[in-house]
């Protein structure tokens, strides 16, 4: 196998080695770049109803280009409110997932070897299931007659089942569970990179455990917190499964609306427009974030 690979390389010669990349490039062209460009074009197309995306419309054809979709997006309260909510949702997911992940990551960091493996496995395990299955799993646990409600009713803490799903709590819960593994892994890795001697030094100089955490561990793990915030925020902004399956119409994000435009209203043009606005939003926010981060980094 290796030998034949070497044979190919020598036959191609150094300057034609790039030909080996051809399959990958072709794959990306066909399955990524082509749809990408096509959708971009469609977002500027006149919506004709029916099948929606102007079948047979040529890329160049005069008179089929319009800014109407974008204008509608930015002037219709329905869309602007939804965009605003999507950003708010991203921020909430970012903050909540990062906070919860930090607690869990810290627990993992402080645990003994066995407990560490168990906890890490528990964090990663949900990633082995389908996201839809995961969301429906939450129904079993948090639904009206789910485990949590049954337990609380049984203890007598509540008399009526709590409504934990199909509201903001449920959507945040679902999305947090989706992104948490990534956040936890990022934070755990950085916590473990902190030299133990630094904590020992802090304690030797008179810092209690808690004090040492705030003086040493937290500041040195801030880079992981920034990454986690960004990661969770981006997942939140692009959230689909959780708002769709665990939310209601007031909690739909732009991603859900893309699906509704394309598959329900058969308005590919509007769907594409939303997708592109969403992408632009993420790029701008990422840029702002990285600027902020660099400035705060430069100050300290």
């Amino acid at each position, binding site marked *: 196998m290796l030998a034949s690979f070497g044979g190919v390389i020598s036959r191609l010669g150094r300057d034609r080695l790039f030909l080996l990349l051809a399959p990958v490039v072709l794959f990306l062209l066909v399955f990524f770049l082509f749809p990408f460009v096509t959708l971009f074009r469609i977002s500027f197309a006149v919506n004709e109803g029916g099948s929606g995306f102007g079948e047979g419309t040529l890329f160049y054809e005069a008179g089929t280009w319009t800014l109407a979709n974008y204008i509608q997006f930015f002037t219709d309260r329905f869309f602007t409110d939804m965009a605003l909510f999507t950003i708010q949702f991203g921020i909430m997911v970012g903050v909540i997932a990062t906070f919860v992940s930090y607690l869990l990551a810290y627990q993992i960091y402080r645990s003994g070897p066995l407990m560490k493996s168990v906890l890490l496995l528990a964090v990663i395990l949900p990633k082995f299931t389908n996201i839809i299955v995961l969301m429906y799993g939450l129904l079993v646990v948090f639904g009206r007659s789910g485990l949590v409600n049954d337990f609380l009713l049984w203890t007598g803490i509540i008399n009526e089942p709590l409504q934990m799903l199909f509201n903001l709590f449920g959507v945040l819960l679902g999305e947090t569970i989706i992104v948490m593994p990534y956040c936890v892994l990022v934070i755990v890795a950085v916590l473990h990179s902190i030299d133990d001697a630094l904590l020992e*030094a802090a304690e*030797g*100089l008179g810092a*209690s455990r808690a*004090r040492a955490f705030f*003086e040493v561990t937290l500041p040195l793990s801030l880079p992981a917190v920034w990454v986690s915030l960004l990661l969770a925020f981006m997942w939140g902004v692009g959230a689909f499964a959780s708002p769709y399956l665990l939310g209601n119409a007031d909690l739909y994000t732009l991603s859900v609306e893309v699906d509704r435009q394309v598959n329900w209203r058969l308005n590919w043009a509007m769907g594409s427009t939303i997708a592109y606005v969403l992408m632009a939003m993420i790029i701008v926010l990422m840029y702002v974030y990285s600027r902020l981060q660099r400035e705060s980094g430069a100050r300290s």
Partner: protein
Amino acid sequence: MKPRIRVVNLVKNFGSFTAVDDVSFDVGEGELISLLGPSGCGKTTTLRCIGGYETPTSGAIEIGGERVNDTPIHKREIGMMFQSYALFPHKTVEDNVGFALKMRGVDKAKRKEEVGKTMELVDMLGFEKRYPSQLSGGQRQRVALARAIIHHPEVLLLDEPLANLDRKLRETMRVELKLIQERVNISAILVTHDQEEALVMSDRIAVMEGGKIHQLDRPADIYNKPSTKFVANFIGETNFLEGTVTGLQNGAATVKVEGDIEIDVHAHDGLHVGSDVGVTVRPERINIGKQAAADASNVIDGRIEFVTYLGSIANYRVRSEAGPIFQVMQPIVGQQASLSEGESVSMWWSRDTGLIVD
């Protein structure tokens, strides 16, 4: 003098392995004691027990007259300097040095003043605003020292503080560290496996092996009167000969060693004819020449097998006619060693030079 630190019958087990095995010693006020020994002998573990980083299996630690076995690390008045320095990378030099005062609730202005004084002491004025990553190894070391002493702790704990410096700097820093320690008159425990460092810096040295202290004495006594074979071998070079006592008269013993060589040494109490003993003779205490002086004792003839030229001293490897090999060290006068390989020579030393060890 009242001891500042007392270690009493300290034992530390890791599972079934005993890292520190019944260690006891006192450190007087302003005294610097070294724990010296080969890798893995339990030096760091002993130090960490004193600092509170390890819980002793049994025995007691007293700091400033109080038993601190159950006192958490941050309530013990210690200053610890780590081999890696463990400076906080996200804090300026100033904030690193002032850390212990901040933890003790000292206000900012007072802190600044104290930091200034301590920085002056370690000769680092002007570096306050830098980050540790912007300092050289030697400078980091000074900052680490400043940080460890600013709060006037009862004891300064030093775990191989000079191991990360290059040779030249290490030699300068030894003396500086010792001078600063003396100036602030702080009791200190130094862990090292570098015998030179221990000899230069310590008031007393505890030579450790396998979790036990072999000997605890002033540097000169450790060198000149090693009490065990291990100590004799570990500190400096030595010729070690095993043999049996064959004669005892008015304070002198005759020991017959390998090759039926008879050596006269100073005898200590409890020795009797027939005892198996070891004799050590330091290589630099052995005289060597073409002809032994007429009244010389312990004369052994041999041939030089190898000469090691060390600049200011020559190291001769001599095979005696009776068999055993001796190391002899002589200062070089002039430019060349005075004897050369293959020459027949005599070695001799006075009765007080050799030493019986257990």
